[in-house]
């Protein structure tokens, strides 16, 4: 018995891998695999979509609409992020407990505000958007707040973590010099975490662009609105034009955030200064322009959000969700629970399938996608085709992650029959690009010496992969898989909106039928799923360490 334990520990990763593979295979059994999964006309429809991709609609009128919508999408994202930063800053500081003095009040403040941050980020931004639209109407502020709340939750948590991880010595020194708590925060903590916080914010900003684009699916403007209209009319060529605008926007933000991060981490002061000031002015310009556009161009008034009328509708709406004056609320009905829980299980299977597919594709493509393999610096071998392969795969990654899951789902639903598979595929299509990019960065950052050793000893490519690269990067790969799975779990409800099965599909129907208590029931099931996913991924991550 005493011998068994260490050997179990030794093979922990192996056992875990087996277990995760088994879970993935179990999720695949939820689908009857045969040719019936396709529509009879699925293939021709797919060809039409591909034709649109190759020949996007470049009429000037469409391009103009695209440009305007791209600006709306960008403006909402910027306005939402600027609010998110304020929220993250305030609640993050409170959640870190750096302002409280006694031990007891620190624990209370930590638990409470971390709970607030956790709750706000566990609900997908589209659900927030929908709640806000129902409560305050179709105001741009519905979109902005819907972006600010979950993003503020994520940023706030990271900010709190950073504050807690600050090295102790400078803080102790300040305290010893007699500074107050606030002074310690401003002169001690903040200067130490600024750079990290900003680079993380820039990284999140890219995600916010995509989220902003899909806000239109509850009826707010932007690129998603145009994509949806064009899809409804089956004009695939225009769909791709708008998708390309979105991709361009994502690439632009990606490039900018790389620049800022480089400026913050580079030690070459002169260069950092220049691009730093440039970024400051550029950010200010964008923020001012966005808020001006929203308050003046779109005439959205923040004060109107709290008007008597809105309060009345909001209370009516939330009363409806709570089943006030309802004879038989769905969330107190056993039968409704059973059907909802079945959907919950389906949704869980969909998320596992999605991460499984994404993992497989990313795994096949990640090695050529790493820069140090493409230029031969890792394996000490140069091949002309490696560079081409690198370019193609990286382009594929950008393409895959720039298009939101929801848009992928809306197209896939024309090819596959409604059900779990199209939902899983849409989620996988979006996530393999993200996973591949993150993994490729892991490979790029790894210690090259063991690999060079293997390469000079004459190991083949496959041997290098299995004996050199994988053992080093696998734990981090797994961390990213689990992290993406959590995100996928949150998004499952959203792809269901367009008929891709699971809880989301029923959620959409309940919304169309104004069946509020059913919505509450489905939201409860969704929350259960998100909590399970967070818990499962946390324990697995700990087990790997």
């Amino acid at each position, binding site marked *: 018995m005493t011998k068994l334990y260490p050997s179990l520990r030794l093979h922990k990763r192996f056992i875990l891998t087996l277990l995760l593979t088994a879970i993935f295979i179990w999720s695949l059994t939820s689908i009857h695999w045969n040719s*019936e999964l396709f*529509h*009879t*006309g699925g293939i021709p*429809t797919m060809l039409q979509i591909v034709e649109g991709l190759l020949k996007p609609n470049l009429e000037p009128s469409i391009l103009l609409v695209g440009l305007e919508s791209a600006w709306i999408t960008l403006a909402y994202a910027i306005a939402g992020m*600027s609010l998110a*930063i*304020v929220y993250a*800053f305030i609640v993050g500081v409170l959640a870190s407990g750096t302002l409280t003095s006694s031990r007891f009040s620190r624990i209370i403040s930590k638990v409470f505000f971390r709970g607030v941050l956790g709750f706000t980020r566990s609900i997908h931004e589209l659900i927030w958007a929908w709640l806000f*639209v129902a409560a305050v*109407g*179709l105001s741009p502020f519905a979109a902005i707040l819907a972006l600010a709340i979950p993003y503020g939750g994520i940023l706030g948590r990271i900010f709190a973590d950073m504050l807690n991880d600050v090295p102790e010595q400078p803080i102790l020194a300040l305290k010893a010099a007699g500074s107050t708590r606030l002074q310690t925060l401003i002169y001690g903590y*903040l*200067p130490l975490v*600024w*750079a990290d*916080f*900003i680079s993380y914010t820039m990284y999140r900003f890219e995600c916010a662009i995509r989220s902003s684009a899909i806000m*239109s*699916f*509850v*009826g707010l403007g932007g690129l998603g609105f145009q994509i949806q209209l064009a899809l*409804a*009319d*089956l004009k695939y060529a225009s769909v791709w034009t708008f998708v390309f605008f979105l991709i361009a926007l994502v690439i632009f933000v990606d490039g900018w955030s790389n620049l800022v991060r480089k400026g*913050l981490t580079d030690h070459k*002061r002169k260069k*950092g*200064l220049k691009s*730093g*000031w440039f*970024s*400051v002015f550029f*950010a*200010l310009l964008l*923020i*001012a322009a966005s*808020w*001006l556009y929203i*308050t*003046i161009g779109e*005439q959205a*008034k*923040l*004060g*109107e959000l709290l008007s008597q*009328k809105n309060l009345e*509708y909001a209370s009516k709406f939330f009363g409806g969700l709570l089943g006030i004056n309802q004879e038989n609320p769905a969330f107190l009905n056993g039968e409704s629970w059973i059907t909802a829980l079945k959907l919950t299980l389906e949704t869980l299977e969909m998320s596992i399938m999605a991460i499984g597919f994404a993992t497989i594709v990313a795994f096949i493509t990640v090695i050529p996608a790493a820069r140090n393999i493409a230029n031969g610096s890792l394996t000490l071998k140069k091949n002309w085709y490696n560079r081409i392969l690198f370019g193609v795969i990286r382009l594929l990654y950008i393409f895959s992650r720039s298009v939101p899951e929801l848009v992928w789902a809306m197209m896939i639903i*024309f090819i596959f*029959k*409604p*059900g779990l598979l199209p939902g899983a595929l849409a989620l996988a299509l979006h996530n393999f690009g993200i996973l591949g990019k993150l993994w490729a960065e892991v490979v790029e950052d790894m210690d090259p010496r063991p690999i060079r050793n293997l390469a000079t000893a004459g190991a083949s490519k496959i041997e290098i992969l299995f004996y050199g690269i994988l053992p080093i990067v696998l734990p981090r790969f797994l961390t990213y898989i689990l992290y993406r799975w959590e995100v996928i779990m949150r998004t499952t409800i959203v792809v269901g909106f367009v*008929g891709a*099965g699971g809880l989301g599909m029923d959620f*959409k129907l309940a*919304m*169309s*039928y*104004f*069946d509020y208590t059913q919505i509450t029931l489905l939201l409860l099931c969704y929350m259960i799923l998100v909590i399970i996913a967070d818990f499962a991924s946390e324990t697995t991550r700990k087990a790997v360490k």
Partner: protein
Amino acid sequence: MKKVLSGIILFMLVFSLAACGQTDDKTNEEKDDKKDKKTEEVFKIGAIPDQNASFLQTGMDAVAKELSEATGLKVEYVPSVDYAALVTGFQRGEIHLAWFGGLTSVQARNLVPEAESIVQRPRDAEFKSVFITQEGSGINTLADLKGKSFTFGSESSTSGHLMPRYFLSEEGIDANTDFNGKPNFSGSHDTTYKLIESGSYQAGALNISVWEAAVKEGKVDTNKVKVFYTTPDYYDYNWTINSNVEEVFGSDAKQKVKESLLTMPGDSTEITDLFQTDKFIETKNDNYEKIEQVAKELKIIK
């Protein structure tokens, strides 16, 4: 240095927000000024997005123009992405007049009890849905649909979902279980026939008026798609006016709007094209009792 920089970025973000708060105050004052002049309010009309969006925009803009000329109000068409969004806008009093389907008008009147269905087309009193399939699919009756793939229109559509589902259930077909896979909701009637034409789905049901227009204008290839079943009559589309109209636009506004609608389409080809009719007639809430009853039976409303 870089820390100072990043600090500046952060603080500027916060300050720019504070600046925005001030502009909000200003716009609020402007709003208070506006409240005194009630006629300044824009009369907003909407339509369920059951057809091609640009086509709908052209037709509804023409309606807005005519209404504006007849009533002297500032009229604007507000497009919406789905049926439920329009009903919600109507509930919130933000849409004053809406072109609803039978089901959405019943939903809207459930949420706004004082609202009234006022005007319809002659054909809406005897509306029908058509069931279509690809030529040579072997589907000739409703009973043949068992085990085939099927698409409705929007889930909130009367002629694209509610009544087809009802007539299917009369034939003993449960749309949730008897098809090959779950039924799809295409979102609009135009999308439905396109999905059948491309072969994406084997059969579907849609609004007879949209179908006839598509055939007439050659938008659908009748060598590929055929109608195999036409439903019995039922009441469908109508103009529903919101309960707040008299309060916001004056006591004669409702009557004026109604009269103006009854004179349409006049010589406006845009309106004729969109509504496929040469005149409008009066209607009343009671005409839609059957729809309400069916929707309750199918548990679509409570």
